[in-house]
């Protein structure tokens, strides 16, 4: 066993996901505490050529599990071979693909599972993590039981680690050990359907302007898009707005949609039901705009603006544009 910190690094369309860059930074930070190295387990289209560049974000090595566009779960046998007896922890993004692979590691290698975590550290050579449970009402600290196998598998929410930029390191690239096949590699894409509109990956946005039932319709999202643009962010939605067909499901935030952790979340016309709250409650700053002075979101927002979103959102967009213009930014 080594003290290395491994992390899943997903690539698609030739580029690393933002999660890969964040986890590279997080793994490097934890590896500095454990006295090991940060090691990427890189998979997906672009992993072979892009693995080395993860060095700029803290990875010392990159093990390439495969470089094809296929379901993430099919990389499980290679991930299992690479993680066997390797290091203290494997960090995985708390996304559907990340969870699929993390679960395969837990089940194949009988490993302890943690998360999604809000913080992690190495204490006395053991990975200790903090997790918000029971809908955020309790923070628990957990560690592997005595004698538990390593590595620990740790799910990490987006934006938990701030990517280190401007580095110039190069990760040493290696091929994954020969893994063969398992039943998990038998999943295939039988059909693929592209949406008409291009959708952003909400998990990667640092500013999100989200709309709910109060937005009233597809066209009601237009002012939200303008505000998001002025703030350099993306538009999201509650389940009610996605169910109504006003916005694609890829942009749904909540228990059954994306779990996001932006530095700024603005919720407009969103009441703040518990199912939505668990998808955004770790945002650093929360602004709510709602006509109902008793909306539940008012209980946990940092700033609650009571009023008509169709008046306030455009006014705010204009104000931000004006200030940006006068400050020269």
């Amino acid at each position, binding site marked *: 066993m080594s003290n290395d910190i491994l992390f899943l690094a997903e690539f698609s369309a030739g580029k690393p996901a933002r999660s890969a860059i964040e986890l590279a930074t997080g793994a490097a930070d934890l590896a500095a505490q454990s006295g090991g190295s940060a090691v990427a387990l890189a998979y997906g289209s672009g992993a072979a050529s892009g693995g080395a560049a993860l060095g700029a974000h803290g990875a010392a090595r990159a093990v390439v599990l495969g470089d094809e566009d296929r379901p993430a779960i099919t990389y499980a046998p290679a991930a299992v071979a690479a993680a066997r007896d390797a290091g203290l922890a494997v960090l995985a993004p708390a996304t559907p693909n990340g969870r699929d692979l993390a679960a395969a590691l837990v089940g194949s290698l009988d490993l302890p599972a943690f998360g999604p975590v809000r913080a992690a550290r190495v204490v006395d050579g053991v990975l200790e993590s903090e997790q918000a449970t029971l*809908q955020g009402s309790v923070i628990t600290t957990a560690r*592997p039981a005595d004698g538990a196998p390593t590595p620990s598998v740790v799910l990490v929410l987006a934006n938990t680690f701030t990517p280190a930029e401007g580095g110039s390191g190069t990760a040493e690239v290696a091929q994954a050990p020969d893994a063969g096949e398992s039943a998990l590699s038998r999943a*295939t894409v039988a059909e693929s*359907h592209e949406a008409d509109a291009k959708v952003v990956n909400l998990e990667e946005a640092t500013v999100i302007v989200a709309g709910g039932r109060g937005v009233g319709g597809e066209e009601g999202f237009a002012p939200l898009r303008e505000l998001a643009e002025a703030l350099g962010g993306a538009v999201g939605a509650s389940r009610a707005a996605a169910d109504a067909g006003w916005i694609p499901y*890829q942009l749904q935030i909540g228990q059954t949609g994306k779990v996001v952790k932006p530095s700024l979340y603005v919720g407009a016309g969103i009441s703040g039901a518990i199912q939505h709250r668990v998808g955004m409650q770790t945002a650093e700053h929360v602004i709510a705009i709602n006509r109902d002075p008793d909306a539940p979101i008012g209980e946990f927002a940092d700033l609650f603006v009571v*009023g008509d979103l169709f008046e306030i959102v455009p006014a705010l967009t204009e*104000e931000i544009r004006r200030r940006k213009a006068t400050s020269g930014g």
Partner: protein
Amino acid sequence: MKIVVCIKQVPATGADKRYTADLRLDRTGVEAIINPLDEYAIEQALRLADAGTADSVTYLCMGPDQASEALRRALAMGGDDAVLITDAALAGADEWTTAKVLAAALDKLAPDVALMGMASDDARGSLVPGAVAAMRDVPLLSYGSELALADGEARVRRLSATGFDWIAAPLPVVATVTDQVGEPRYASLKGIMAAKRKPLETWSLGDLELSADDLHGAALTTVTDTRAPEEKPPTERIENVPAPEAAAKIADWLEQRKLI
């Protein structure tokens, strides 16, 4: 075609929850329900049974004795029979242990599809289905907004980055579904009466040929501390002001925090 739906009993959403002195979830006096997201797995299984695709639907649950209530409620929605795995040695089980126990029970039940909800309300790792698939060495089809079965193959419709895919794998599989499969049906009075007569077996670890030693006690993880979240400063409110003034105040707030 045989489907086993794995369900979990959880404290009711919004119920007052706390931990016991030994850092486990205190279940005394808290209303318990079927994990809401598991109801979608039940609904998906029953739709396949209604369509004649599934011949039988069995429910499987690991939990304390009172979790049999969750199984009865599921049987009231439909389906054929149920198995409760309960054992004192399972108190404090973590995701790995839960997966280990469910995998052993599924080996015994040998379904074509082991179907689960996409997440549980009280712990949000969502790792149990994939771990069960890995332990049983069967394919995993996760996060389906629909499950289809035909010609020895299972398919799930799953959101992709830009649209959706149908992901396929040969049976048997472990599959998970989202809340997009359709609203779960209510139990009818007739269903509730019928559920009382449906078979419900109780298995112990011994019935699964597992011991506490096989399960590393009951967990590979240990909770060392619980605490309340950091106190947030009280919510600041802006109200009863015209929109331009509210906008200026919000912009000031954002500037103070260097967000613009």
